[in-house]
């Protein structure tokens, strides 16, 4: 709507620039305003017509509708969030969102700081504790130590917290504690929607862990081992 108001304003300015000098200079036999009237009618009509032919009149609605636009403009959102939190630093939810955005941009240190602030505001929020664990692990490169403590804490508050389950399973997987990894991840899989990237990745990792567990328990041959070894290098379900 505001776009068409803008177009209207443009057309009015154009007509004013054209017709005002004309009006001021009108000579004695000014009895034929036909040209002026013609321009008055044709200019708006042609402008709209040409724009609909050449332009992208639908794009504004599409942009407003599609989430894609906002996702691509994530940098802008991060900046907006930062500004908002400067004014209102007690907003745990805001710090949490900013922390997740930083993680998406792989800015681990900033993510950790933001999530720490979120955790100070809401120390009993399992989501925030798990996310903080991930941020610390991203920075240090390991889930052991403080991240694992936070994950355990989060699961104590909410045993079904998805991020906490994911990280707890991953930590166990990295330590080759297959049964423990399967415990967390199977619980996670029950919570995740089926057609989802994370679901696919976790179920793939679950498959590997199951095979590893079977080998360890049964001690059967080395079949499937190289593949499993190779996968182990990148076990993250992301």
């Amino acid at each position, binding site marked *: 709507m*505001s*776009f068409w108001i*803008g*177009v209207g304003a*443009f*057309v009015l*300015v*154009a007509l004013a*620039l*054209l*017709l*005002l*000098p*004309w*009006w*001021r*200079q*009108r*000579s004695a036999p*000014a009895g034929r305003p036909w*040209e002026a009237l013609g*321009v008055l009618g044709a*200019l708006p009509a*042609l*402008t709209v017509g*040409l*724009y609909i032919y*050449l*332009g*992208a*009149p639908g*794009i*504004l609605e*599409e*942009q407003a509708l*599609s989430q*894609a*636009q906002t996702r*691509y403009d994530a940098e802008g959102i991060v900046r907006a969030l930062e500004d908002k939190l400067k004014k209102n630093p007690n907003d745990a939810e805001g710090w949490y969102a900013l922390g997740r955005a930083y993680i998406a941009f792989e800015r681990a240190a900033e993510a950790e700081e933001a999530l720490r602030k979120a955790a100070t505001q809401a120390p009993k929020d399992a989501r925030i504790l798990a996310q903080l664990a991930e941020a610390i692990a991203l920075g240090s490169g390991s889930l052991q130590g403080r991240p694992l403590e936070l994950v355990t804490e989060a699961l104590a508050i909410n045993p079904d917290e998805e991020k906490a389950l994911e990280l707890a399973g991953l930590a166990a997987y990295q330590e080759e504690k297959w049964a423990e990894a399967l415990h967390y991840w199977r619980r996670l899989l029950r919570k995740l929607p089926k057609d989802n990237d994370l679901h696919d990745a976790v179920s793939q990792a679950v498959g590997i862990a199951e095979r590893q567990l079977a080998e360890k328990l049964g001690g059967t041959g080395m079949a499937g081992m190289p593949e499993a070894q190779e996968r182990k290098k990148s076990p993250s379900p992301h």
Partner: protein
Amino acid sequence: MIPELGHVALILALQLALLQGFFGLLGASRANLSWMAAARGAATGQLLFVLLGYLALVWAFLANDFSVMNVAEHSSRLLPMQYRFTAAWGSHEGSFLLWTLMMAAWTVALAFLGRRMPAELRARAIGVLGLLSFCFLAYALFTSNPFMRLHPPPMDGGDLNPLLQDPGMILHPPLLYMGYVGFAVTFAFAVAALVAGRPDAAWARWVRPWALAGWVFLTLGIMIGSWWAYYELGWGGWWFWDPSENASLMPWLAGTALLHSLIVTEKRRSLQVWTVFLAVAVFALTLLGAFLVRSGVLSSVHAFALDPLRGLFILVFLGVVVGASLILFALRAKAVMAPGAFAPVSRESALLTGNVLLLTALGAVMLGTLYPLLLDAFDLGKISVGPPYFNSVFVPLMAPALILLGIAPFLRWGAADLGKALHDLRWQALAALLIGALAPLAFGAWRWQAALGLALAAWMILATASALRARRRASGALPLSAWGMGSAHVGLAIGIIGMGLVSAYESETTAALHKGEKAALGPYEFVFQGTAEAPASNYSAMRGTVQVFRDGREVVTLMPEKRIYLKSKMTMTEAAIRYGAFGDIYVALGEPLPGGKWSVQFYLKPFVGWLWVGALLMALGGLLAAAGLRRQRMEREETT
């Protein structure tokens, strides 16, 4: 939303341009004052809306709005802010829009600065410019629309061509376009004069400032382009006879001829037809240049065939402009001819001869530029016409023109005594010959390029100085226009010294060097101190360090770079140059070689800077001449 509003602004500008043409031309022929006023209003509106459209495009670049295809193709998130701003004219679409914007700006300047002009002449010129703007805007909207959208938008753009990420390239296109547009104004005046039948002395007086302004901008634009090629392309060439360079040289040559012919028309009421013809020709040549550079024929005539609309549009536009002007010319040339006769030996005929020589040189350049394209277009084989052709044709044609340049001020208007002029100049000629013969010896070896350049330059400087002195003795103080002529002619001479000496005495060597190893060239010794990483936001670079010694004393430390741009993977050589009044030291980093060596190129470019200083003086000369015209007009208005 802003790009869409920009699009609407251009659509409005298109219609206003058409109305500007309609009201300007019909208003003038019916002497309808309100229509002529409406044409000026339309011109103002056209400028406003082209500007809004242009600003919308700039905004899209600054805001990284990759939903605009033009931004997605010519910018990226990594691109530094200042280049995001200039990327707006780095693309075909954007640069055409800039051209259109400048045309609108010049039109409004004409509408407001030309208040004292005869109303019909001004309205006709505004009308012609309106029709030209209409064609430009139609071209932009229908074949080169900068506001095409992408949905959904890509995450990031493809980055700006690294060659354009440079201050020289930021200035070059706007200056050239300012020049082109200045000559669009003279074209509009020429058509107006043909329609009304009065390209008289008063007409020439109105046109001259615009022609001078266009010529000054074009001179500066070509100069910056040449300097950019010198430092950016990595081997210190300053003119390549490349078709895209020739595209701007051809209008410059014709524009130079026009400036001189306008003088004759103003002072002697003669050569009107020739002047009007030149005004048409200069503008047609700018369009030819636009066709060559913008249609894609240069990269390959077949690239043109792939997307023929753009090229075809300009070609048809060119055909209409030239065809309509020539028809008008044929119908009206008799009527505009005036009896301003002059003798075979006179200043008029000297200026005319100079004009003809300039146009002949132009023809030679045009032949060398278009011939390979035509052969290729008709599948008659591929040839390339290079510097040997251009140098061997251009230099012999220009040399007599430069000799004439010294004599012309000593010839009187109407009829002159050539023998007396030559007698007056005998010592200058002898001095020039001696300088040409002897001065090259000071450089260690006698070379003809140096001898020719120095002799011509000495002749031009001495003769110009004598002409100015004689004029001062005759009429007291020198008017600004005389200083302008002096500055332009001396500037040309200085440029020629640069050309002659650098082509005669430039030297180069390439060496494969380890860290700490040395190379020698001329009196200089270069010590390579290895390379180091020098990263930036959108490229990574290796920066070499080269110490330059002369007679054991360190002269300067140069740091040439080799850059790889992250997005486009293009490699760029960033030469390091020590500019000097008597020559430049130029070092470029080549390739890394096996075993940790680097190939490094060293060049000595004696007097090369004189080229650009000369061009600057020429532009200054144009400015002084324009200022002189303005002062004359003020004085005339005070007395009447």
